């Protein structure tokens, strides 16, 4: 094939853009790892971002987690009741929440709330030249804006995930207690009977991976925003869509690996 025969494109505009994007995203991730371990560390700003990511997501996470636990228990009850197995509800709910729902629900909520926020904030800073202003003031905007946000989402997602799991279990307990008058202690004893270390560890890994994905995608889309205010909206939207897409792919891969380990 003759190089550059297609109006300067190697393959076609669409393929060239795709491969260019892949290359740029790869470079962006590599740059993150180079900068994250290089001094000076931005402790203060990282803590500030952890507060933004964690504390400010709490109301939505609490509501979603509680409703998930409550509704999941309510919907599972009739099926189990058919076999006279409602006593299995606590362990069934715990397995579902800890293995799958808590990490996934937390990640999807965070992708919508935190990912779009990061994309819009950095996108707005990009199109109004605030990032350039940092650069010409001899401030490293990548370290100050990107590294701190990605670290914050990576550290905070596991904490939020455990919190979601706890709140969901409370929601489930309320339903179980209302129907079977099970005590709090015996509910949690039954719930954790079937939970292994691998379940908790794989969820922790999931939350770390999802947190990193949400942070890096939001920052990448924001950092590369263009075309004024329209670009800011596009960056916020693309951050959510791409994060969710990647989270689902990562979910499938991690579940596959965990199941292989489980044997």
């Amino acid at each position, binding site marked *: 094939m003759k190089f550059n025969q297609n109006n300067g494109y190697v393959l076609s505009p669409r393929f060239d853009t795709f491969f260019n994007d892949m290359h740029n995203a790869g470079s962006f991730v590599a740059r993150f790892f180079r900068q994250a371990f290089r001094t000076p560390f931005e402790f203060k700003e990282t803590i500030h971002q952890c507060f933004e990511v964690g504390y400010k997501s709490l109301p939505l996470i609490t509501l979603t987690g509680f409703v998930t636990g409550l509704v999941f228990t309510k919907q599972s009850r009739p099926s189990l009741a058919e076999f006279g197995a409602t006593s299995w509800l606590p362990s069934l709910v715990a397995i579902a929440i800890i293995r799958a729902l808590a990490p996934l629900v937390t990640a999807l909520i965070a992708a919508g709330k935190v990912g779009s926020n990061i994309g819009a904030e950095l996108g707005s*800073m990009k199109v*109004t030249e*605030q990032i*350039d202003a940092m*650069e010409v*003031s*001899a*401030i*490293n905007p990548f370290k100050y804006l990107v590294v701190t946000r990605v670290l914050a989402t990576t550290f905070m997602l596991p904490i939020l995930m455990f919190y979601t799991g706890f709140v969901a279990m409370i929601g489930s307990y309320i339903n179980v207690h209302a129907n079977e008058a099970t005590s709090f202690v015996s509910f949690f004893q039954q719930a954790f009977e079937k939970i292994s270390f691998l379940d908790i560890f794989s969820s922790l890994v999931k939350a770390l991976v999802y947190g990193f994905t949400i942070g890096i995608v939001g920052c990448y889309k924001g950092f590369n925003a263009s075309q004024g205010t329209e670009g800011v909206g596009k960056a916020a939207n693309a951050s959510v869509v791409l994060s969710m897409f990647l989270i689902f792919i990562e979910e499938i891969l991690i579940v596959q690996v965990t199941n292989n380990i489980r044997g």
Partner: protein
Amino acid sequence: MNDVNEIRESVIVVEDLYKSFGNKHVLQGVNLTLHKRENLAVLGRSGTGKSVLIKIIVKLLTQDSGRVWVLGEEVAQLDEKELMAMRLRIGFSFQNSALYDSMTVGENLRFPLVRNVRNLGKKEITSAVEGVLEAVGLSETIDQMPSELSGGQKKRIGIARTLILRPQIMLYDEPTAGLDPITCIEINNLINQVREQYNTSSIVITHDLSCAKTTSDRVAMLFDGVFIKEGTFDEVFASTDERIQSFYNYNFTQ
């Protein structure tokens, strides 16, 4: 090739600079020298590459070919640390001011200072912030957010933010764009005052003739990616070149 002595004695030297965006050739062999304590106005219509030129000087953009020296050092040869050190000696005033909109005016000014000058006491920071605010005549805005400021005030604060690092060179990108005539005069006076007070050399990117006339010792006219005329304001506009005359007449009628 520029003479080694010329590079050493000049503040900025640009040699044979080319820059394209896709099929659009913005700069097509630009040569420029900025001398110490000189104010140079780069004039030209929108889209002729004026802003691109100063963004290449501070390496916000990279040229396709050509060389740039700032204070005797070739910009392309600098590593990350050296580039940061060079940027500390340059103040860049953006067209839309680029103030950090989540910070107050005081925080906007404090931010570059505390990030770049370590071990500064609270007193020293406060006095530096108050000093530059006083220099631009906006001491009362210290606790205001950028969204509460007028266009002219934003420009002044943008200039103050660069002055807090005491730069040797100032690069102004369209300092009077979008401002009313009286505020334009105030900004022009501020540019001259900055040179006197801070001993800076400056490049003023503008398409505003009154700004160029008031603030510059020398004017360079950029047209289609190359300088077509350089000299004092009167020398340049005494030219019979049709392109220069049409630019002058257009501005005059505006």
